[in-house]
């Protein structure tokens, strides 16, 4: 029996890292000690039999090729970080350690942050422990987040450019989801708290098509959008339409959507697990310089896809028959029914379109970041903020509001919002805008009741 566990300690990039205030950095920057720093072995052979093999790589904030990190001490414990020690090794020139384990079970890999070389630190939340569930004949990938610390302060200009880039990208992703939310809200009046789970659905469907069926990411993404649309159609037919026909009130439906959100999120966690997983392609890409802006290929693709989709949707809403019908139903369902519109059919179409857009947001988010069972839930409030800021139920409003929210979130740290809570600025703006202009930027006053 040969049990092999490959664990990858990859480094994740983060502009947030660059923007961290100096105080936080001083706290977390490791101080290398001379005794542990340089003594990296040339090569750690992979242990025969059951083992945990870890490769430590530094992505250097996404610029250039990942570099192995030698000379870092890693320890494997059984069950928990206080459990029985299985062995300690220092990473070799290829950044690898290989530690033998007795058999199946739960193991914890602990990285000693003191031995990290100068200028490298764990990014993300700076976790130094990772739990690995070893099962027979399965291989597992573990990621530590590592990024390079930029000790000298980045100039204000480059911070603003970096923030704008991430802000526009996340703003566009929020806009896709917000468009879906706004369409559904506009026609049915439903404040859908399960909307975040529709984002997650798109992301997880991509993951399943990609890793489960082995399709390339692009094909998996297309299928995931189709699956999202089908899911939206079924959801409307199976749940929301019967509720509308029963005459269930809007607040009751809102609480039903909360129940649905809990239900779906738990199902996702049940099937997908609690960990964060990556797609098979485009996980890590270096950025090329285009004038002052650094963009990776996937970021360009994400921007193009979302801008095109949003533009096509908006034009379709303005020009096509179905678009006009949707706007008519959203304005006054009773009147459009009496002028001969099939209101239920229009609402079905809205659900299909809305969930497809939201699913696409999930797909792009999965490509841009990673896949997690609560990624949509984490984004939900920002989507709400975008929609409310622009004006509930308006399409252009949702678009503009989302872009503003995305930029607020990513540019906030440049102007003094603590980086670890950069969402706070956007949510605070949401509350302030309601004080001054409750109908939102483009909303109509009569909508707010």
């Amino acid at each position, binding site marked *: 029996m040969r049990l092999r566990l490959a664990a990858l300690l990859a480094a994740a990039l983060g502009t947030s890292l660059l923007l961290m205030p100096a*105080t*936080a950095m001083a706290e977390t920057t490791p101080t290398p000690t001379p005794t542990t720093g340089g003594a990296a072995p040339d090569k750690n052979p992979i242990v025969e039999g059951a083992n945990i093999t870890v490769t430590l790589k530094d992505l250097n904030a996404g610029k250039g090729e990942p570099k192995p990190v030698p000379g870092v001490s890693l320890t494997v414990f059984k069950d928990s970080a206080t459990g029985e020690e299985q062995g300690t090794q220092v990473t070799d020139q290829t950044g690898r350690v290989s530690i033998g384990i007795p058999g199946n079970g739960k193991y914890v890999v602990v990285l000693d942050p003191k031995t990290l070389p100068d200028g490298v630190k764990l990014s993300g939340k700076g976790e130094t422990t990772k739990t690995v569930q070893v099962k027979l004949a399965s291989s597992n990938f573990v990621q530590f987040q590592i990024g390079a610390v930029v000790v000298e302060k980045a100039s204000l200009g480059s911070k603003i450019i970096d923030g704008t880039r991430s802000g526009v990208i996340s703003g566009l992703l929020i806009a896709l989801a917000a468009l879906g939310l706004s369409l559904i809200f506009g026609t049915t009046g439903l404040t859908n708290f399960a909307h975040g789970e529709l984002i997650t659905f798109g992301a997880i469907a991509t993951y399943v098509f990609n890793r489960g069926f082995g399709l390339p990411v692009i094909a998996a993404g297309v299928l995931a959008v189709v699956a999202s649309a089908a899911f939206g159609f079924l959801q409307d037919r199976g749940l929301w339409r019967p509720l509308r026909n029963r005459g269930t009130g*809007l607040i009751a439906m809102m609480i*039903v959507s909360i129940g649905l959100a809990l239900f779906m999120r738990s199902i996702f966690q*049940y099937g997908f*697990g609690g960990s964060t997983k990556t797609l098979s392609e485009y996980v890590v890409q270096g950025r090329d310089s285009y004038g002052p802006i650094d963009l990776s290929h996937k970021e360009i693709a994400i921007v193009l896809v979302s801008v095109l989709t949003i533009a096509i949707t908006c034009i379709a809403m303005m020009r096509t028959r179905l678009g006009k019908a949707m706007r008519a139903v959203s304005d006054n369902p009773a009147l459009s029914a009496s002028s001969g519109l099939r209101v239920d059919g229009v609402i079905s179409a809205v659900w299909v379109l809305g969930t497809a857009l939201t699913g696409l947001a999930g797909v792009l988010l999965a490509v841009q970041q990673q896949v997690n069972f609560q990624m949509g839930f984490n984004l939900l409030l920002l989507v709400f*903020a975008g929609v*409310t800021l622009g004006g509930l139920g308006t399409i252009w409003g949702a678009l503009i509001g989302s872009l503003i929210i995305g930029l607020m979130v990513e540019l906030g740290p440049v102007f003094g919002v*603590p980086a670890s809570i950069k969402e706070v600025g956007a949510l605070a703006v949401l509350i302030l805008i309601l004080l001054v202009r409750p109908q939102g930027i483009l909303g109509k006053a009569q909508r*707010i009741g």
Partner: protein
Amino acid sequence: MDFGTIIDAAFSAAFGPQAIVFALAAIGLNVHFGYTGLLNFGQAGFMSIAAFGLAVTVVTWDLPFWLGIIVGMIAAVILALILGVPTLRLRADYLAIVTIATSEILRLVFGAVEFKDTFGGSNGLTGFVRPYQNLNPYGGGIDLGIVSFSRNDLWSITVGWSLVALCCLLVWAVMRSPWGRVLKSIREDEDAVRSLGKNVFAYKMQALVLGGLFGGLAGIFHILKQGSAVPTDFNTTFTFYAYAALLIGGAARVLGPVVGSMIFWFLIAGIGSFFSEATKGSSPVIPDWIMTSDQSSLIRLILLGLGLMLLMIFRPQGIFGDRREIAIDGR
């Protein structure tokens, strides 16, 4: 499979401190949603601001415990005023979105690494609970066969259920007063109340403050019973669970939230314990390929979500409520 453990877990949860926290929070929501029709989705925010008001006063500022309680409750009142001004004139779902956003803002700020010196970062604050535990008159724990509580839990239960009883008494008294009747009529028809010359905004604000105070009490009790104030405890799921508890018991009934919270925790703990027992050991009752022990803890959440949907669809008035009294139609 050990049914004794399951029954013990279910009953201990139904009468234990966790059910008290949710009962208090749900009493607050009952004032908001049940009686006044305000859709407050940020009860966790009221809880966290009061909890951290106490913890920061005692731990960070080194001031007396009782002053901390007062600071916490005042903080909850101020939060209600700040939330009420922009949103109470707007439609119900605006209040929902703003309150949920505020509770997330508070949770993120309390957990932020930048404010670690004041709020203790993601680990929160500890070391404020001594004066509370020193009042504990009990010598040891209790084991009654189907329920067992430790010494600290026994003290928390005594304090907690007394608080719940006092709050219920207060809600009962207030809601049969003329003031309470105005609240209920605001829920039924805001414009009619306005046409009678009542200041609807002021009444709604008073209801928001009263319910927020109950929420603050729940937050303070929560950190006292567990001895630490941790920001992640106060996430939005907390509010949704409190809503589930309220809706099970029945909104707009004095005892609805209390009974609802006991039933909620009885089911949550019972189902959780059942599935954890069923997947435990080397040859579990439910085989590993269907459900691992990690997954078993999720079944109760799946059932909770499903239950909340079905409850709202088929019996929105809960166990005790009156369907005509539930503000679910919206405007």
